[in-house]
């Protein structure tokens, strides 16, 4: 995982490489302190050399200043490096997500993608920051302090040889158990969160059925389970500290005993003894720091996995590798659409039934095509194959007699306007939203499209007209207005093929009829696909494709179908009596 994530350090590499240099200076400055202090005690005081004491004292202060400077620098370096890493990672993730095909998008929920780009990346960058500091500082500290301690007195260092492994093994064992138990805590947290969320979403149901007490009982079970798991985990984790104190204090006692003899025997200075204890403390403390980094990385590991999952997602709809040079690439010029023996399932490995099968038809440029059928019969899937939002499993889709896979995705989609069922608008003005269709569209272009989509009038009814600010997702518009805007947005594109996926469901029949009229007059050169629930929406189409269970069960104009097609007749009948108003 580290290997995969490391490249994202990118241009901040120099900060990351320089960090250990200043950490080394910082550690050296810091570790010199006890040594210098011991010289004051052992040499300065015993020889009563005032100048010596002052000189060493000044050295110490200077070293502390060096420590401040080097510390500040390495903190800065590590922060710039790690925050830069985070920013690069976020950029890469965002770019990757933008490349996602519809299949890829369907696999992740929006909430989960947002979490990966925010919380998970933040987790990783903070861990990286900590690791950058601790993983260099602590081992350096440990090694140099050990060398210094050894230099003071090799014999006393044996104590360290025992204390060090004891502490390391102890901490390791504690960490292992604690990590396992914290994993359980995480599960319980997930459980409690989902109970909570369910209660919030279904609050009306809980109230309508008077189930507050029942729900409280369920919640308390989760709550107690969480508390238990927490206590079990934390109780182990807090053993770390007493363990370290025990080891450190025992070591100190032994050193004081052994060292005391040496001081009396004049083979060790009293100051040296004190500084030796300082080093022991620092060495043992370093181990704790390293363990801290391990704890953090364990948490970051999950984040790393989630981030990598996005980064390593295979984009299944991409430009062909052998695409010709840009000038030679095909463009959509007429709007002819042909399906040849198309079969489709969302996943090739899926053993289930095809979503679409045996689909073959040809639509001439400028024709208006209705697609009709029940939910789940594959209507949306069918039209999604035209702009290659999904790739066919078998057969081929051709636009202007060229396989859609032989276009550059960008060129293909530039020629196709599409209004999705999920008609998202973006925060910004109405104008900005319409300009998504074509970024060089003039006001006149926008107005033409808006008129065709029956949106111009209501846009002008707003005080700011085309400059009206839309909230996120167009919250301040009605459903019908939103749909008309999304239709206009697609029309601004001036596409050769226009696809409307059930996008007039909230528009009243009269307005819808006006929109349809524009298909025949102003957009006579455009091939139009209309998916609809209402038969009235497709009645006048040149061709109507009737889908049932992924297969074409009828194709023709309204009159022919009504006369010959049983399923079409059935739909027609049910709508005559069934629908008041949708």
């Amino acid at each position, binding site marked *: 995982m580290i290997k995969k994530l490391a490249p994202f350090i990118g241009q901040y590499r120099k900060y990351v490489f320089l960090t250990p240099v200043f950490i080394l200076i910082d550690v050296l400055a*810091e570790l010199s*302190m006890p040594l210098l202090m011991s010289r*004051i005690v052992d040499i300065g005081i015993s020889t*009563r050399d005032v100048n010596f*004491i002052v000189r*060493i*004292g000044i050295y*110490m202060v200077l070293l*502390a200043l060096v420590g401040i400077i*080097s*510390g500040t620098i390495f*903190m*800065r370096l590590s*922060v710039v490096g790690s925050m*830069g890493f*985070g920013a690069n990672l976020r950029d890469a993730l*965002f770019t990757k997500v*933008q490349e996602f095909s519809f299949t890829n*998008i369907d696999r992740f929920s929006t*909430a989960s*993608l*947002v*979490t990966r780009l*925010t*919380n998970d990346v933040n987790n990783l960058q903070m861990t990286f920051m*900590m690791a950058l500091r601790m993983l260099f500082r602590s081992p350096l*500290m440990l090694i140099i302090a050990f060398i210094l301690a050894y230099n003071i007195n090799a014999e006393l260092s044996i104590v360290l040889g025992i204390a060090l492994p004891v502490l390391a093994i102890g901490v390791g064992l504690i960490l292992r158990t604690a990590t396992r138990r914290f994993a359980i*805590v995480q599960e319980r947290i997930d459980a409690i*969160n989902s109970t909570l969320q*369910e209660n*919030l979403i*279904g*609050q*009306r149901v*809980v*109230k*309508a*059925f*008077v189930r*507050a007490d029942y729900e*409280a009982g369920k919640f308390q079970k989760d709550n107690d389970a969480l508390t238990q798991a927490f206590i079990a985990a934390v109780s182990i984790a807090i053993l770390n*500290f007493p363990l370290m*104190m025990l080891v450190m204090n025992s070591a*100190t006692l032994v050193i004081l005993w052994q060292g*005391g003899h040496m*001081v009396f025997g004049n083979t060790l200075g009293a100051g040296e003894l004190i500084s030796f204890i300082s080093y022991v403390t620092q060495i043992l*403390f370093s181990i*704790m*720091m390293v363990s801290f980094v391990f*704890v953090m990385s364990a948490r970051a590991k999950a984040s790393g996995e989630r981030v990598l999952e996005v980064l390593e997602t295979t984009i299944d709809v991409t430009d062909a590798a052998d695409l010709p040079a840009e000038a030679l690439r095909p463009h959509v010029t007429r709007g002819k659409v042909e399906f040849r023996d198309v079969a489709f399932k969302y996943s090739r490995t899926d053993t289930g039934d095809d979503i679409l099968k045996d689909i073959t038809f040809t639509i001439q440029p400028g024709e208006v095509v209705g697609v009709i059928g029940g939910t789940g019969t594959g209507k949306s899937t069918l039209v999604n194959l035209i702009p290659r939002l999904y790739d066919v499993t078998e057969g081929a889709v051709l636009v202007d007699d060229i396989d859609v896979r032989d276009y550059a995705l960008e060129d293909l*989609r*530039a020629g196709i306007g599409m209004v999705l069922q999920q008609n*998202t608008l973006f925060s910004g003005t109405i104008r900005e939203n319409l300009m998504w269709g074509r970024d060089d569209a003039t006001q006149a272009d926008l107005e033409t499209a808006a008129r065709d989509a029956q949106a111009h009038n209501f846009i002008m009814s707003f005080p700011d007209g085309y400059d009206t600010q839309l909230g996120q997702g167009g919250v301040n518009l*009605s459903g*019908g207005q939103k749909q008309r805007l999304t239709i206009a947005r697609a029309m601004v594109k001036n596409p050769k093929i226009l696809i409307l996926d059930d996008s007039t469901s*909230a528009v009243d*029949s009269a307005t819808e009829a006006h929109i349809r009229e524009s298909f025949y007059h102003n957009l006579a050169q455009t091939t139009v696909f209309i998916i609809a629930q209402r038969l009235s929406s497709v009645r006048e189409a040149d061709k109507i494709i009737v889908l049932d269970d992924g297969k074409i069960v009828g194709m023709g104009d309204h009159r022919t179908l009504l006369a010959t097609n049983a399923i079409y007749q059935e739909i027609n009948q049910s709508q005559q*009596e*069934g629908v008041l*108003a949708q």
Partner: protein
Amino acid sequence: MTEARNNTRKPTLPAGGGQPQAGPGRGPGGGPGGFRGSFQKPKNARKVIARLLGYLRRRSLLILFVLFLMLVSTGSSLAGNYFLKPLINDYILPGNFSGLLRALAILGVIYLVGTVATYGQQRIMVQVAQRTTNTMRRDLFAKMQSLPLRYFDSHTHGELMSRYTNDVDTLQMALEQSLVQLISSSVTFVGAATMMIVLSPTLSLVTGTVIGVMVLVMRGLTGRIRENFLAQQRNLGVVNGYIEEMVEGLKVVKVFNHERPAIAGFKERNETYRVAATDANFYASVMFPVMGNLNNISYAAAAMVGGLLSVVGRFDIGSLAAFLQYARQVGFPIQQTANQFNAVMSALAGAERVFEVMDEPSEVDEGQVVIVGTTKHADGSIEVNRNGSRPTHWAWQVPQPDGTVEYVELRGDVLLHNVTFGYEPGQVVLHDVSLYAKPGQKIAFVGSTGAGKTTITNLLNRFYEIQEGSITFDGIDIRQIRKDCLRNSIGIVLQDTHLFTGTVMDNIRYGRLDATDEECIQAAVSANAHSFIRRLPQGYQTIITGDGANLSQGQRQLLAIARTAVSDPPVMILDEATSSIDTRTERLIELGMDALMKDRTVFVIAHRLSTVRNSNAIIVIEGGQIIERGDHDDLLLQHGRYYQLYTGQFELN
């Protein structure tokens, strides 16, 4: 996006303890350095603390014991450091080794006591913190269930979820660690300072000066940190919002070839955030080397001046060694307190937000009238069931002013009289609405979205309180009926159905908890849900997760109908489906709904012609007022709004 983010909370391993007081000569500088980037303050700290104490009171003995242990551990660490003086002066330098052994034994005991006390204190605080937050979560949940729907309308799910997760968690962390540390830091500071003065007032003056500088630096830095973290937070919000919008609309981005502008827009915002995050984290981190090395300067000054004093014979090596330990110990709390103080403050702010929810007014329920099971005799008289058997009929038990009770048969007679209502003060959603439904009648509401159809049904079971007018149920004002009884007598099927984690059977039984398996299956059969349930992998024992994500929308709706069917209420409210469900399932749902409507008073928000046509009365609502009423034929003849709706000339959404 009201959905709460995945796990806003993460369990945190308390790393390394971070207690400064124990063990001699903890190395200065460069601590683990996690600065918690939250700068929240409670609005009224005193009040919050008082209330928190209420929660802690039931564990006051434990807490007193913790405080005692804290004093012991802090005391032992102070004492352990002081011990260096006699150790060096009296035993090591003169070579008194039997004395040294004795002294070391005592020191060992002091260390041990300190260690045990520290562990004990942490262990108990874990219990206290966990039990306390458990109780708080329980109370919060119970409170949440009692809140009126109005509250849920004006607060996002994320907001409420974060009370349980972020706020309760911060509090838990603070209780587990920061609170005791904050106190023990202060005690350590005072203790170490006192010991230093005892050892050498002159030397203390030197160290004191450096400590003064530390405090000043600390102050300056804290301000900077706060400022920068706020800026970081703001920029993070911008980045998150952008990600959310662009990911949400990703399919549109693709269809419009808009990837490049989207990426460019992101890069710009991401860079701004990077700069802000860099500054914020820098100021937070730089505190550690700066404070650590300032502490080193105080250490150096003490060593130098102490050395000089020793040369002139006014100090000794043992005292110097002890003093140097204290010099280190005294600086540590200064670094730590800022962090701990912040943690405690944001915990208090979190607790305050939790208490705010707890202080929200609950649903008003002053109803005295309750439902009782009855048996109806052949002569029409009713008798109250007292033996607990499932009754055939129900009655309202109405207390009379003279202390007696009167029984009124539950028939399902509903009357709205001049009802005026608005969700917000000043806003009128329903204006002067009057209507009645006789037992067994079917009333259909028709009108555009936002006209007030759902609102009327919301008022019937008192999801919201009406501002003017009255609603009566069998002649009793619904405000006099206890809410649970009222709601139990009204079944409701919402258009967007919600299911709960559990088996299919559990979800049907939700309608009546004491229903047997057979009754649940019977309900499923009558609701037309049986056939699809049987085809599920585990039939009625299939586990439903994530609000029924493993079922289709139509199947969820069928289950919801079965759930209401099993509760068998005298009055029903149905919100018919408008969403695009395939025709087969739609047909099943219709049949299920029709079965449910039989022999009951039904209010239905109608979208289907067949429902409307068969209703006893159709009520056309527009702009919160009843504009037309009558049966199908009447209304068509009127050539009014109903006629327009019917012929599809009017936009409904």
